[in-house]
Every structure is written in C-alpha cells, then in structure tokens.
C-alpha cells in the first residue's frame, strides 16, 4: 500500500498574503493530490449591492472588492450600467479610463513579480520591485487623489481631469519605470539562480490550459491567445497600440515573462494615451434607471472579470453577480500543483497571482 502524507498550505501561511487553503497529498516530496478551499473572507458584497446601495453608488461599493484591481471592478460595473442605459461616454473619458486601468495593471503585475521572487527566496529583487512600484502608486495618487481607492470612474465618464503638469510628471515617472523594467526582463531571463527556481517548474501545457479554462497571464504563458481587451468595443484599445503578449513555456518563468512584457506594453499604451489625449468633456449626464440584464467583461490584471447586472427600472438593482478571475482559475491551479515538489509550492502559488479578496468577496 502506498503511504502518503497530507500537508496543508494555508489558510495562514508565511508565503501567503491572503487566506486560501490547499491541502496537498504528498508522496515523499512529490504532490500527488490537491484539495483547495477559498472563501475565508466572505463579505457579502453582491448582496450589499442589491439591498443597501442605489445603482449609482454601487460603483464605489464594488471598487472595495479588491484593493489591487479596484478600478477594474468599478469600470466593469460602470460599463454594464452604461450599456443598459445606452449611454455614449466622451472619448476623453474613455482614454482617461484606459490610462488608469493600464497603470493599475502595471502596479499589480509588479506586485506579483516581487512576490514570486520573494517566495522563491530572492528578497533583494522583492525589495527593488516594490520600491519601483511606488513610482506608479505615486502617479496614480497624483491623478486620482487617492493611493488605493481611486473612485475615479463614475457612471457617465470620469470624475477628474488630468492637468498638463500632471501629464509631464506621469511621463517622467513612466520613463524611469520603463528603464527599471528592462533591467528586470534581463534579470528574470538570464539570472542563473532565478532560472533554477522558475524554469520547467509549475508547467501548464496548452492542452491543459484549454481543458481547465485558464485565463489571463496564466493562459497566455501557455500560448493560449485570450485577452478580453482584444474583444471589447467599449474601450478603443486598438487605437492605443495594444498587443497581446504570449509565451510558450507555461512554467513560472513564462508567466513572469508574459507579465513583464505586459508591463512594457502597458507603459507604451499609457505614453500613447498621454500623447494623443483628445480634447472635450469628461462627463455626460446619465438619465434613467437600469432596466433589463447585461453581461460585461473586461481583462483585469489576473484575467477575465465579468459582471452580470440585472435591473428592474428601480434605483435598487435586482442582481449583481461578479465573476472574478482567480475563482475561475482554481481548477488550473490544482492541476499545476500535481506532480510538483512540495518545496516549489509557494513559488508556484505566487506565480498564479491569486487575489483572494476578489475570490471570496
């Protein structure tokens, strides 16, 4: 008879930032079975959206689902209400939304890369990336007025305009970040000891990515060409130079490379937005109450985020359903762990960039 041992990872663990529980069935060091559990931080956000807040305030409620991708949540919700009310928002507001969304992606990916390094035992790179991430946080604060909760997007447009002085500061900061990111690409690709921890570890093949419905950078690292930004029409991504970033390895290294390339692409997009920022209004008046149902998708830093909103022509909505990227990726997470060494588990887990406050909401 085979003798196996069960080792839990979480819900409280030194390598985790947020509570998720994986129960590994191990044969010596090798993981042969995985059981996962999420939902330790349930806050009842969906219920609150339909009972406590009117539809025009819900955008600020869903922004509190997640601290890292707050703006993606409020944008997707707002887009769904605008779609229901058939509102056309000004082009300048669309550009400003994209600017903030891409800045958000940059800092979220930087956070993920720093934690992958930390969990693989490279504290120095963790410190450096977190230090450079601060530049992005500062420009976000400059534009929106707050560091984490931007409250920048509202139904009908955006809340604040950007001044020429701020544009100059943002451009300068982006230039600095770009040079730093180039350095990281070199280090993540060529550093020998990093490659020991990343290359051929935690592999998800292209077939498995299809089979387990992988999304976001996790899928793109396996060569699966899916990115919601390529498929939506409510934000003009084709105008600002969006390019899908894919890789083929499917391992931790490939995920890091996809994220680094996405940061580079996002920086380019932000620069293009600032160069070609259209003139005009940033808000339109929106009239009416949401009636009917709508599903809107957007590419959050971790993958596809979907909002299903149903309204009955009243100020209170009938249903708000949030489908978050991490929750949809859990089957692929569990599959990747199978056959890996237990010692690699924290680094593999960090490379998924799990967001549990989104998942459990």
């Amino acid at each position, binding site marked *: 008879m085979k003798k196996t041992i069960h080792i839990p990872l979480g819900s409280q663990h030194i390598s985790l930032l947020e509570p998720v529980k994986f129960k590994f069935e191990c044969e010596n060091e090798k993981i042969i079975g995985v059981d996962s559990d999420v939902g330790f931080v349930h806050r009842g956000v969906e219920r609150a959206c339909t009972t406590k*807040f009117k539809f*025009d*305030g819900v955008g*600020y*409620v869903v922004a509190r689902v997640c601290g890292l991708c707050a703006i993606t949540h409020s944008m997707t919700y707002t887009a769904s209400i605008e779609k229901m009310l058939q509102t056309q928002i000004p082009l300048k507001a669309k550009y400003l939304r994209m600017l903030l969304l891409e800045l958000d992606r940059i800092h979220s990916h930087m956070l993920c890369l720093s934690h992958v390094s930390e969990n693989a035992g490279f504290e*120095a790179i963790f410190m*450096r990336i977190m*230090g450079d991430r*601060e530049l992005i946080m500062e420009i976000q*604060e*400059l534009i*929106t*007025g*707050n560091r984490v*909760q931007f*409250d920048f997007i*509202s139904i009908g447009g955006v*809340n*604040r305009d950007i001044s020429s002085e701020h544009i100059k500061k943002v451009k300068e900061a982006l230039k600095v970040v770009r040079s730093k990111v180039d350095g990281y690409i*070199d*280090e993540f690709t*060529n*550093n*020998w*000891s990093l490659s020991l921890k990343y290359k051929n570890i935690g592999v998800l093949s292209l077939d498995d990515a299809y089979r387990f419905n992988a999304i976001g950078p996790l899928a793109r690292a396996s060569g699966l060409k899916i990115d919601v930004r390529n498929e939506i029409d409510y934000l003009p991504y084709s105008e600002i130079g969006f390019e899908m970033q894919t890789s083929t390895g499917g391992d931790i290294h490939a995920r890091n490379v996809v994220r680094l390339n996405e940061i580079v692409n996002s920086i380019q997009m932000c620069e293009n937005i600032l160069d070609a920022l259209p003139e005009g209004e940033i808000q339109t008046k929106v009239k009416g109450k949401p009636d009917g149902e709508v599903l809107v998708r957007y590419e959050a830093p971790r993958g596809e985020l979907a909002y299903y909103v149903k309204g009955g022509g009243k100020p209170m909505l009938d249903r708000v359903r949030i489908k978050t990227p991490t929750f949809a990726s859990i089957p692929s997470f569990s599959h990747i762990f199978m056959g890996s060494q237990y010692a690699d588990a924290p680094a593999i887990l960090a490379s998924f960039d799990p967001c549990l406050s989104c998942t459990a909401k």
Partner: protein
Amino acid sequence: MKESFSKAFQNLFKKPQTIDYPVTEIKKDKDYRGLIEYCEEECIYCLKCEKACPPGAILFVGVENPPKNEKNKKGLKYHYNPYLCIYCQECVRACPKPNEALWQSNKKPTIGVASDRVNDEWFELEAIKK
C-alpha cells in the same frame, strides 16, 4: 549575474526608499482627496448632497435651534461623518453651489479609535432620520 551582484552591493550605500515618518512629513499634493467642508451661510438646503452620498455620510436632521438661514425652512442642521466618508466627491458634484457651500479639502481625518466610540452619536442621528 555580475550586474545583480554589483547592484546589490551598490544598494548597501544608497539612501533608504522609505521616509523617516513622522520626523519627515509625507508629501501631500494639493489635489489630494480629503475631508468635505461645508459653509452654513451659503447652503440652500436642497439636500442633494445627502441623496448623492454613497455611504450616507451626510445627514440633515431637524434640531431645536437650527442655523439661521432663510433657505432653511424645515429647521435642519448639517451633519458630516468623516469616518464614514469615502472622499469620492459625489456630494460636491451634486451641489448646486460647489466651492461655496460644499467643497473638498486635502485635509486628513483624525484617527478614529474603537474606544472613542466615534460613531455612537452618528447612529443616534440615523435613528432620528429614519
């Protein structure tokens, strides 16, 4: 590899990235979203800010000695809870007299500690309002 070693070595002689708070003050932009400020004389008591506020941090409650303002026919008084406010500026955008009756400053709220029971008074106001 060599470069990362040299960078790690150089970092030993660099200044820390963090600031020496509270000795050094945190840089604060003039556009930082902070507390909402109100001018009693300029207010026209249309109650639009109260309706627009997503968390309900502004309440107009009837009191015995209301502020003297000819527009204040119902004898209401403005109440604001900085601990509930999310500084989203919805109230200022809803206000017919922004920057005169209601505006957003870049001031920070004082820290609310549980033992101070900062919301007790507020819950009483909410009960009156209902």
